[in-house]
């Protein structure tokens, strides 16, 4: 397919869009607060107002302001000033929003699109989230979809694609921040033959829903990223490993794959080139450890989802023993824009070693919670106090937990740190996949440590002894502390266990499981001390 043809295709898709678009969020968060009924009521209201030719109600993905859902947005392509945002919309308010288009008073609660929650965001991965119908490939094409893939296949060699990604400075968004270009070039350099691309959509951190939202809001973006990756590394088949707890993401992905195949964006001879790439979905059975790449590979191939020692790394010996590229959803979501807008553009965003943006799910004791995409280097204070609006009811921030069960707590006096890979890990936490939980003054930090340890001991696969038995012992000690039955010797033992489990566990789950304890001990040791009891009697 020629470039002009793709453009024409996009133009056709754009022409189908009507002047006034009413966006109704139908992602999981808003669905939970009745958004499908809102969408239905909107459709009905448009029909009743006889506005069917000008107004189009679009079922879209996540707009991010999940705590205020269901969210409805109104956009008028003829009048850029006519932009409206409504929060906590009920089906009863639908007719008034539609009548509002004709100048009548709207009863729905208006939102402020200039609120710092939106104003501080820079959306790259989520640029189309909430703006297009995720169930329609035409909507994706209308916003320039699949142009990055076309450009890669026809204008760039695989080596050039890898170089572009390398130059962009993109790092893995799944947690550890490994340079994406280096991973790609390792797989690309393996001798030609069967290779695979895997999209890791096994998002399991408590409180994290970044990947879920991206998949629910813009599934084609991920498929495009995978196809570009496949071309770059020489793989003709990809798997999306997505957890079964994300049924909406799965069904939207299935639709997207079907549409992409039908339109020759996936399959054999993509766009008429000599390149083949197909994608299959593998549904995970609910094990956190399957987010670890070797466990994920074992699970995709039908085995028990347990990790194995690395090296050999999956890039060398991966799925079915073949070189395999594994990238997280958000990482893959960055690929198409890097190709279309260039590595220099991407590398101009962010800090020295952390480029681009990062999506966080901002939750906990914060007024405005939801999904945010911010440039690297923003301060934690801007996120928590400005975007999140601080703690409700005038409370104080005590700490911010980032990185989920592998991460740590950053105390309030360090809120001015820059959000990037290096600064967060220097503060004893980590970027992680993007969970961000704000805690107020009433939060027990020992309780927080116990919560995450309970999670880790339940999710340990049981293969290696330090993780299986060590997390259980640590959890027991934390319970004992909170029950005010522990002594200084117990606390010392907890610290020894943290050190040992971290140093000896087989995979990342075990190695990082002590982090929530270590970081709370680092900043809130007095809370542990205050719980201690006198030692056992001895002469």
């Amino acid at each position, binding site marked *: 397919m020629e470039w002009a043809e793709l453009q024409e295709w996009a133009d056709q898709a754009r022409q189908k869009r009507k002047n006034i678009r009413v966006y109704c969020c139908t992602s999981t968060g808003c669905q939970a607060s009745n958004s499908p009924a809102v969408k239905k009521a909107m459709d009905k209201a448009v029909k009743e107002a006889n506005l069917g030719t000008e107004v189009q109600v679009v079922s879209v993905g996540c707009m991010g302001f999940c705590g205020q859902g269901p969210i409805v947005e109104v956009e008028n392509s003829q009048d850029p000033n006519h932009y409206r945002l409504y929060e906590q919309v009920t089906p009863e308010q639908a007719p008034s929003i539609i009548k509002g288009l004709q100048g009548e008073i709207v009863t729905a609660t208006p939102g402020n699109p200039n609120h710092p929650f939106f104003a501080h965001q820079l959306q790259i991965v989520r640029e189309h989230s909430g703006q297009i119908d995720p169930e329609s490939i035409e909507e994706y094409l209308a916003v320039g979809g699949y142009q990055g893939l076309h450009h890669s296949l026809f204008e760039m060699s695989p080596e050039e694609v890898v170089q572009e990604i390398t130059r962009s400075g993109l790092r893995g968004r799944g947690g550890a921040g490994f340079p994406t270009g280096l991973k790609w070039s390792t797989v690309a350099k393996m001798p030609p033959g069967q290779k695979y691309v895997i999209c890791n959509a096994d998002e399991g951190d408590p409180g994290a829903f970044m990947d879920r939202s991206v998949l629910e809001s813009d599934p084609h973006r991920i498929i495009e990223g995978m196809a570009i990756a496949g071309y770059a590394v020489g793989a003709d088949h990809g798997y999306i490993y997505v957890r079964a707890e994300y049924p909406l993401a799965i069904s939207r992905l299935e639709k997207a794959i079907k549409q992409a195949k039908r339109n020759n964006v996936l399959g054999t001879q993509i766009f008429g080139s000599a390149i083949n790439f197909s994608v299959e979905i593998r549904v995970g059975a609910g094990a956190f450890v399957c987010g670890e790449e070797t466990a994920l590979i074992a699970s995709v191939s039908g085995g028990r989802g347990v990790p194995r020692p690395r090296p050999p790394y999956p890039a060398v010996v991966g799925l079915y023993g073949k070189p395999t590229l594994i990238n997280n959803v958000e990482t893959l979501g960055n690929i198409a824009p890097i190709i279309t807008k260039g590595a220099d553009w991407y590398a101009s965003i962010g800090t020295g070693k952390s480029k681009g943006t990062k999506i966080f799910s901002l939750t906990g004791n914060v007024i405005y919670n939801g999904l945010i995409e911010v440039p690297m280097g923003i301060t934690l204070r801007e996120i928590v106090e400005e975007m999140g609006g601080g703690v409700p009811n005038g409370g104080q921030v005590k700490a911010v937990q980032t990185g989920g069960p592998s991460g740590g707590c950053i105390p309030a006096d360090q809120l001015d740190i820059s959000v990037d890979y290096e600064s967060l890990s220097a503060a004893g936490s980590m970027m992680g996949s993007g969970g961000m939980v704000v805690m107020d003054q009433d939060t027990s930090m020992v309780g927080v440590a116990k919560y995450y340890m309970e999670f880790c001991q339940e999710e340990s696969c049981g293969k290696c002894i330090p993780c299986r038995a060590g997390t259980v012992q640590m959890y027991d000690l934390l319970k004992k502390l909170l029950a005010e039955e522990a002594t200084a010797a117990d606390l010392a033992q907890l610290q020894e266990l943290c050190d040992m489990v971290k140093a000896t566990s087989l995979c990342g789950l075990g190695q990082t499981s002590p982090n929530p304890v270590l970081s709370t001990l680092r900043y809130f040791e007095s809370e542990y001390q205050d719980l201690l009891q006198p030692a*056992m*009697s001895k002469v």
Partner: protein
Amino acid sequence: MDKIKFATIWLAGCSGCHMSFLDLDEWLIELAQHVDVVYSPVGSDYKDYPDGVDVCLVEGAVANEDNLELIREVRDKTKLLVSFGDCAVTANVPAMRNLQGKTDDTLQRCYLELGDDSRQLPHAPGIVPELLDRVRPVHEVVSVDLFLPGCPPSAERIQNAIAPLLEAKNPDMTGREMLKFG
């Protein structure tokens, strides 16, 4: 040199460790030169555990209220407490009742499910000590200074462990001869 005050006690165990202690045979005579046996089910007839005991060998796990009371008293009045044998060190066979669950589960199983003629739960408060919910090794209840594993520890192992104590030295608790459980 003053004789050291020496004691042994017997919690939840089979007394095998004490039998093994008696297997020290003629060395017991030598031991007697160095120690005053101030309390022991096999070496004295004192009913009360005295103050200021230097060394006490504790056989058995902590399984009932009586054990608990005694071990706490012993710990308070003893300088060097030795977990003597696997039951004291690991809770061993007495702890196998923990696999049934809590006390009620165990009693239910033993006296009702497996009982024959007169199926009834024992109940004699103040006479028969109440079982604890879980049998535990001694060091989970009070602090312990020396561990002497074995089921039972052989007479030789016992001698090698306590002979240095008489000279206020620490025994060398390494190697199969001194450490093997079971």
